[in-house]
């Protein structure tokens, strides 16, 4: 099965599973569990096969419907897309298994698990794979919508009043963002007559309609990636949702719109975007790092703390723009490698942290950070998983987060922009502030903690630990994956 023939299966499998799950919604727990596990295994297997295929054959392109690009839509998979597909498969499988375990645990002690979780779960994965592999501007729009709606649905499944209001706020932001993006697509089609990304990359010139289109798309995608000051919708949505849902939202969903922004700025229209605009995004990113960190420091609920940390960590991704636009080839290459490694390392670490936090909250019974006193003795492994994930988020070695911060630092130094160096370091210290704040609470030995911790399934720790360990292991060997991820990217042309 060549990579080119594997591409459509990356979409057909999750979409078929989503349909299957709608039909199986009423069946007994055992059947849905088996089907889901099989689905996860097939998804991971196929994505690894795609990764290997792209590694051998390079760029894989699949013309859908047999129609070549400007007429039909093409699925494209380069190193970056293949890596993100594997990342999606791994993180969503871990979150899915976590959700399955919590469903079984909820059923055993009488509570009812939210119905119709699984169709939305598989639709979310379809949308993500659709976005990573898309080669067409309008197809990205439909992918973004599917991503937005299934994510909002998953947040709303929480059932509480707070989850409804945050789902509604999330939907409002998502809709506005998609419309801004669609307006940009409309202008691009009017100006160039085609929607296929490779064709657009060749045709594009710097003229008012294109600049307005790129600006609109950037605003829309920044709103969907919750860049500071447009981040208001993210903390409540990620903080209130079910644990596996918030893990997938923070790790993958916000990265989808960022991935499109990266493709737009660096693959399609590198010479339309101005260094000034990039500095603007960088300053907003710096604002996100500082504001998100500050909010996380003062947050009293654990999951909201982790959600604010997402806002802060996304700020790092936007600091990449001033380091890569209008700077030398080496600085741009280092910044790109740093940013892409941060996308992967953050996805692994943040999902591990959310799963670990969910386990701690389930065991303590209350969601506050202050309520964690003495949990260190009863739930050592979840705390250890939280710690490992914290190490990667803080950018302390050995971890993927550290390597990403290292590359961004090198790029800041190579391009002589000292300001971003200070922001990166300051962000790391802020992150250390709120991660160790959680540790300080949980190491505290409260005398009266005589067994008021409820028993939680041991499997929870396994999933959180695996993801956290992968993020740390990435720290030891990130040269090969990075080389694979970045070859063929336009921004790396100068260095390869």
């Amino acid at each position, binding site marked *: 099965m060549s990579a080119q023939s594997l591409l459509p299966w990356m979409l*057909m499998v999750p*979409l078929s599973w989503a349909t299957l799950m*709608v039909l199986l919604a009423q069946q007994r727990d055992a059947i849905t569990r088996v089907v889901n596990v099989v689905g996860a295994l097939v998804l991971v297997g196929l994505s690894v096969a795609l990764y290997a295929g792209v590694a051998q054959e390079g760029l894989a392109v699949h013309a*859908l419907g*047999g*129609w070549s690009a400007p007429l039909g839509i093409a699925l494209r998979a380069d190193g970056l897309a293949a890596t993100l597909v594997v990342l999606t498969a791994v993180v969503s499988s871990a979150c899915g298994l976590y959700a399955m375990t919590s469903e079984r645990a909820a059923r055993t002690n009488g509570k009812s698990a939210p119905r119709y979780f699984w169709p939305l779960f598989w639709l979310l994965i379809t949308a993500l794979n659709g976005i990573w592999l898309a080669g067409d501007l309008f197809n990205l729009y439909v992918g973004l919508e*599917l991503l937005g*709606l299934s994510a909002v649905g998953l947040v709303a499944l929480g059932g509480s009043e707070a989850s409804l209001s945050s789902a509604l706020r999330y939907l409002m932001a998502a809709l506005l963002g998609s419309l801004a993006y669609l307006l940009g697509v409309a202008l691009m089609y009017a100006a160039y007559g085609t929607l296929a990304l490779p064709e657009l990359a060749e045709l594009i010139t710097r003229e008012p309609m294109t600049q307005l289109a790129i600006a609109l798309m950037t605003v829309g995608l920044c709103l969907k990636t919750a860049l500071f000051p447009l981040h208001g919708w993210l903390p409540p949505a990620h903080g209130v949702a079910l644990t596996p849902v918030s893990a997938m939202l923070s790790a993958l969903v916000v990265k989808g719109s960022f991935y499109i922004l990266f493709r737009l700025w660096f693959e399609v229209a590198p010479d339309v975007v101005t260094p000034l605009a990039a500095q603007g995004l960088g300053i907003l990113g710096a604002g996100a790092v500082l504001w998100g960190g500050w909010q996380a420091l003062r947050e009293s609920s654990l999951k909201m703390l982790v959600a604010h940390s997402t806002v802060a960590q996304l700020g790092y991704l936007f600091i990449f723009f001033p380091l890569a636009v209008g700077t030398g080839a080496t600085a741009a290459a280092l910044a790109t490698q740093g940013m892409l490694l941060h996308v992967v390392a953050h996805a692994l670490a943040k999902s591990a942290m959310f799963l670990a936090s969910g386990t701690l909250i389930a065991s303590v019974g209350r969601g506050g950070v202050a309520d964690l006193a003495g949990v260190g003795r009863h739930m050592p492994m979840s705390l250890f998983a939280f710690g490992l994930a914290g190490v990667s988020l803080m950018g302390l070695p050995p971890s993927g987060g550290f390597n990403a911060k290292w590359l961004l630092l090198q790029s800041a130094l190579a391009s002589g922009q000292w300001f971003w160096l200070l922001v990166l370091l300051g962000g790391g210290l802020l992150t250390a502030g709120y991660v160790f704040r959680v540790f300080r609470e949980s190491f505290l030995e409260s005398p009266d903690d005589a067994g008021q911790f409820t028993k939680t399934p041991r499997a929870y720790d396994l999933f959180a630990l695996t993801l956290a360990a992968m993020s740390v292991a990435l720290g030891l060997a990130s040269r090969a994956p990075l080389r694979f991820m970045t070859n063929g990217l336009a921004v790396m042309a100068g260095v390869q």
Partner: protein
Amino acid sequence: MKRRYRHLSAGAVSVALGAALWHVVRVRPTPSVSVASLVADALPASGVSHNVTAVLLNFRSYDTLLEVAVLLAAAVVALALRDEPSARSPAHVMYVALDAFVWRLAPLLVLVAAYLLWAGSTRPGGAFQAGSVLAGAAVLLRLSGLKVTAVDHRLASRGAMTFGLVMFLCVAIGTLLAGQALLEYPAKWAGALILLIEAALTISIGVVLYSLFDNAPQARVSDRESERQRER
């Protein structure tokens, strides 16, 4: 944000956007690529004679596939947030004229839907328009108090909702298994396959759009109010 401040900033942003769009629209773009001509050339091989339907269900059929998934996502969330049967009140609106006409009108509407579906291959029409007409008919029947089976958690209703997507997937996976590219219909079967998909989609879209109307939570203020009073 104080109200006045909010108005001013919103006004500024909208005026800026409007002005930018206006400025950009004034100049007539001259793109070098014309996909319209490509569509015209490839139309004979698409299995339908109407170019929009050809684009929708052959050249860019992948978009349509994802779009049906979007519809299904909304329907699934509607099902998940559906009121328990006990809390559902029969939305019965007493319009004498409506009652008199509706049971004569319904078969006509179904006929119109069938026509729209059939016309899709040669003239503007197709699955979405036909599905909407069907859903409209169902809503009219529901409003006039006639007993329309609810789209609830039963397998039958969930089956009907996903029927269109299932057929679409079967065709798509079929093309893959036959060694073709995804959704690459064999030349001589293209027309038939498109019609098959369209028919299945019509039913599913009708059911989904009706379920989006029917499953919306009833906002009966009465007992909700008392419940919130006790809560405070």
